[in-house]
């Protein structure tokens, strides 16, 4: 694991040196990630079992973390979690698994804290601080490997993570659409219906 992780890190300045935004939005990164994602997806299909969405997601996240080259805390956390659970047949990112449970909890905790803050008749500054702290805690749970991070570092990791997620969504959507289009063009009647519905669902998912 350590060796693999070290391989992921660059020996010196990486090619994309700059703010998180431009680094993740460059076409090069997209292509790198796309290629990695494709290979990872092929790997998930090898076991010849029904490819589970979890495995695909774990593969996508690991590929994303790899593309980050281990320079951010969340990417290292993802890589470590993936490496730790590699022996399992089902590759579930440990952080992802916990996150799945926590995400509704996080939202609930946030709302509960909001209600509590509103109910208590404390001073505004104290209230605001508590609200901000609660939200920071929630954010720390969202970003992998940043639970016990302080505010400035957490915000930095969040920025990088957000840019990376945007790129991941963009790439996966392109891949999925290309897959869908390829399937549409090829004569496979049974697969066309689910593809169309999946595409429709995704359109609804748009923010």
């Amino acid at each position, binding site marked *: *694991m350590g060796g693999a*992780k070290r391989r*992921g*890190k*660059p*020996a*010196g*300045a990486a*090619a994309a*040196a*700059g*703010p*998180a*935004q431009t680094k993740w939005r460059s*076409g090069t990164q997209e*292509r790198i990630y796309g290629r*990695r994602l494709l*290979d990872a997806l*092929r*790997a*998930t*299909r*090898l076991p010849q079992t029904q*490819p589970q*969405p979890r495995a*695909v997601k774990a593969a*996508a996240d690991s590929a994303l973390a790899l593309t980050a080259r281990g*320079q951010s805390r969340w990417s290292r956390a993802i*890589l470590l979690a*993936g490496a730790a659970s590699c*022996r399992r047949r089902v590759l579930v990112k440990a952080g992802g698994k916990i996150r799945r449970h926590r995400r509704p909890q996080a*939202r609930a905790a*946030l709302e509960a804290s909001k209600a509590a803050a509103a109910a208590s008749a404390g001073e505004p500054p104290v209230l605001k601080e508590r609200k*901000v702290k609660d*939200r*920071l805690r929630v954010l720390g749970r*969202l970003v992998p490997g940043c639970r016990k991070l302080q505010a*400035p570092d957490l*915000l*930095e990791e*969040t*920025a990088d993570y*957000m*840019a990376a997620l945007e790129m991941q*969504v963009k*790439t*996966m959507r*392109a891949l*999925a659409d*290309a*897959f*869908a*289009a*390829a*399937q549409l*063009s090829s004569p496979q009647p049974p*697969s066309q219906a689910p593809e169309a519905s*999946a595409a429709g669902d*995704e359109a609804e998912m748009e*923010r």
Partner: protein
Amino acid sequence: MEMNEKNDADLEKDQPSGHNQHPSFHGPGFSTEAQIDSSTNALAAMGNPFPPGLWNPPGQNFGLSETNTNAMITGHPFSSFLGMLSAAVPTYAGPSGFMDCGTGFPSLNGGNLGPMMDHPFPRNQPLGSFQNGTEPSREIEMTVDEGCKDGVSLAADRQQGDTEGSHGVDASKEFSKPGCSGGVCQDEGPSVSSAKKRKRSGQDRGVKHVQEGSQQLATVVAKQEKDNDEKDGPKRPISASRKSNGKQTEDNSDAPKEDYIHIRARSGQATNSHSLAERVRREKISERMKFLQDLVPGCSKVIGKAVMLDEIINYVQSLQRQVEFLSMKLSTVNPALDFNIERILSKDFFQSQGTPASSAFGFLPENSHHFLHQPKHSQAALHGIVNPTDAFGRVTNAQMPNNFDGEFHNVTGMPFSLFNDQESNVEP
């Protein structure tokens, strides 16, 4: 520690060579190059949250410091050493090194070592010997521990930086985290106290503005002096520090230091070291919040940390949900494909990477020539056309499945496959 004693003795003189040469790993008292050399060790020993590998990017500078420091012994110690460090510092401050060090923070691109400062490096005590020097106020001050007021080296560094005109000390200051135990710092004696004062001001400078004028530094320094007077510590260095600060001020006003990072103590605000450090921290946080605001769509009009954080959390959650949904979609799409389609798909996919995904519906993937007819993909098609599309694409894509089949058969887990893939892949 002998190094410390030597520093004590040499406080009043320009004798940095001694401590600078010892790369041995001592507790809080590190020589500059010792810090640089053993930064990775220090990281491990100090329980640094970041793995030592994080410092690989600056690793190249370590060799520089080592060689130059040796040369320092013979020649004039300060100038050569500091010159070396100044050469090293720009690399540190270089965006490539640090941005990749897990920061990627835009505002820090201008040579700001703030994020790096946040790493708990041991303080650089020996730099106290630089007291006499006047370095340029090019301090890359970190404010990780605002509470740590015992930045001996930091304070000293700033002073010497002014005279020396090099930023080398700043590099050492980077490593010298103010977290060093107060007791050790106090033992330094005069240099410590003066360093303490300067360090405090330095740490208050913080990460923010690279372009701060030297006058502001003077302002802060002056205020720091007032604050420092109140702090406990030997009174001896006070006068010395004042004098050196005066010199420092002049030097600062003479040469604007681009990479100097410090915070201006606003008039009317408390100049207590604590509040200054807190203000630096707050400004750091607000700066990052502003950056996040630009990142999150539709948050330009939101004001306030709580609401902003709410939006950020919402956005991150929605992005993660999208990833999950897309992975579900990909998992359904995957089994229906065979290698032929994958080849075509990968060709199309990589060619259409530059264009938004929504346009994917409009193109026919059968033949790459079809891309030409799609206006949205005209640019992408040009990419393909530049290379002999069919031949090159088909050849590479044909090779890919074969290679990966062989590789992946031995793979037991996803990470391994990805890592193997990384080795064999040629990055574009």
